[in-house]
């Protein structure tokens, strides 16, 4: 493809930049705005674009003065736990559906598919009552359970499709060796479905880490709050200091942003692979 050598194509590319650049600036604006406000000293120059007077003071002060570290630990625990649960349970179920053909498997798929469409708000009332009745308010399982269940449908479907795409000779060869089905799942299928695992881990990790509403409802004791609740938690404390409010939100945003930028390729290929399936 010698696209770039053609003059018409080169013109086209110039036009592309003309359209893409302003959009890219617009796309970055809210993120830059947030970071900029976090490194300013006074409320008055939150939106200042002057390169002087930048300081990391707010970020350090906010980190020292608040429980953000505890919130990060909480977020990490519920996110890691639900990612592991969704990968393990989802791959087991996907394996069961792909490896065996049994009555009711179609219904299982249909039920799970309905879970993908479900708006969490539609079940929030009984979910709250359930967590309350089980005495699970302000415990990690209160979030890990619903996160896992809400992410399960996508996980099972993606694993099932990944396993179905594996060649049949594989399982026949394994069966001839006398390997039991669980060993075939663990040693053969699961490692071969690594793309699906990456996709599912990214989807579930983002969903669990970024959730706001369930955490808001279920974590209220001042100890188990996740980072997404940081603004509510410290809004009062920093009522008079906008730069510190910005700093709190910048600290909430930065880890995800950094992980995304570092693992950008994994995100893109993982999610694209998920989409095309």
């Amino acid at each position, binding site marked *: *493809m010698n696209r*770039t050598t053609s003059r*018409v194509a080169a013109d*086209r590319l110039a036009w592309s*930049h003309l359209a*893409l650049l302003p959009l*890219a600036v*617009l*796309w970055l*604006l*809210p*993120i830059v*705005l*947030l970071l900029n406000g976090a490194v300013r000293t006074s409320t008055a120059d*939150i*939106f200042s674009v002057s390169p002087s007077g930048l300081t990391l003071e707010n970020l350090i002060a906010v980190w020292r003065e608040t429980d953000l570290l505890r919130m990060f630990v909480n977020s990490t625990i519920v996110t890691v736990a639900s990612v592991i649960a969704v990968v393990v349970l*989802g791959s087991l*179920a996907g394996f*069961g559906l792909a*490896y*065996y*053909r049994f009555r009711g498997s179609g219904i*299982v798929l249909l*039920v799970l598919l309905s879970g993908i*469409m479900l708006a*969490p*708000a*539609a*079940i*929030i*009332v*009984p979910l*709250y*009552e*359930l967590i309350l009745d089980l005495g699970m308010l302000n415990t990690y399982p209160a979030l890990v359970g619903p996160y*896992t*269940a809400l992410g*399960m449908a996508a996980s*099972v479907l993606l694993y099932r499709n990944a396993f*179905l*795409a594996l060649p049949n000779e594989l399982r*026949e060869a394994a069966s001839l060796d006398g390997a039991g089905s669980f060993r075939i799942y663990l040693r053969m299928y699961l490692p071969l479905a690594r793309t699906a695992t990456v996709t599912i881990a990214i989807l579930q990790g983002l969903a669990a880490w*970024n959730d706001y*509403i369930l955490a808001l409802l279920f974590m209220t004791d001042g100890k188990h709050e996740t980072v*997404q609740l*940081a*603004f509510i938690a410290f809004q009062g404390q920093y009522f008079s200091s906008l730069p510190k409010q910005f700093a709190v*939100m910048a600290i*909430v*945003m930065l880890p*995800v*942003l950094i992980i995304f930028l570092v693992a*950008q390729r994994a*995100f893109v*290929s993982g*999610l*694209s*692979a998920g*989409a*095309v399936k």
Partner: protein
Amino acid sequence: MTSSVGLDTRAKERKPVVGTPTTGTTPARRRRRRPSPGWLYVAPALAVFAVFVAYPIVATIRSSFYDYDGISPIRDWVGLDNYREMLGGLDPYFWKAVTNTLLWTVVTVPAQLLIGLGLAVLLDGALRGKVVYRTVFFMPAVLSSAVIAFAWGWIFNPDEGVATRVIRATGGSGQAWLAEPGTAIWAAFGVSAWRYSGLFMLFYLAAMQMIPRDLYESARIDGASWWQRVRRITVPQVRPMTVLLTLFGVIGAFREFEVVYILTRGGPAHATDLLSIQIYDQAFDLSRPGYAAAIATALLVLTAICAVVLLRLISWANRSVE
């Protein structure tokens, strides 16, 4: 740079096994009488799903026939009263929320499709800085609602927001974007388009990887312009992805809640009320979980109808492409 995506999608293309029955079913057949060992693998996932999703769905519908305050243990069976109140015009905000939810769907889904497709078309090919652009446009999709609502809240801030300042600087008068019923929902639409268009772009780029390049080459030889190639080749070739993304978008629109809730709480004057926000308000602020459950049931029904219609559309589109 996108080679891994391309290879992967091409491999899938070669073997469209999705939905085809498994071969080699001998173990299951031999043990027909006993439950299949498949159930053993499926059971743990189903158990979690049953407790935290399936049971709450059933409980939502059940609760919608009761009146209770969520604090005292008394639950009064009221039959269809909640539905009568909801549908019978006693609650004008319900219909406002239905309208807004549908408006949200018909505005944001096409916007995300168009922007996503446009970005993908511009980025498809050997463009300098392609990875940078792709990263920038996709970035909002990984950020949380809390972060997004905070940042956009300061863009739309009526006194000193960035958008307000820009308008003042160009000679216009200040605009209270989120504080005015007329503009608030459009501001929220904008945030939604900003957040998800990059995701749509990513999926479109993956779909474009699968278009055979010689289609473009021969069209070029025939003298087709760039725009003609986009319209006659790219757009029809990615149609299955458009249908899939439409489904995604509609599901996303019905799920929408957090950003709008944090930005406006459904206000001003219910101008940005969505069904999901009303469920939350009725259940947790107004202590009417039974009535909230009736609204939730309406949301379930609405989602189900849209899902069935769209799934029909998908299978129709897939058939017509083949």
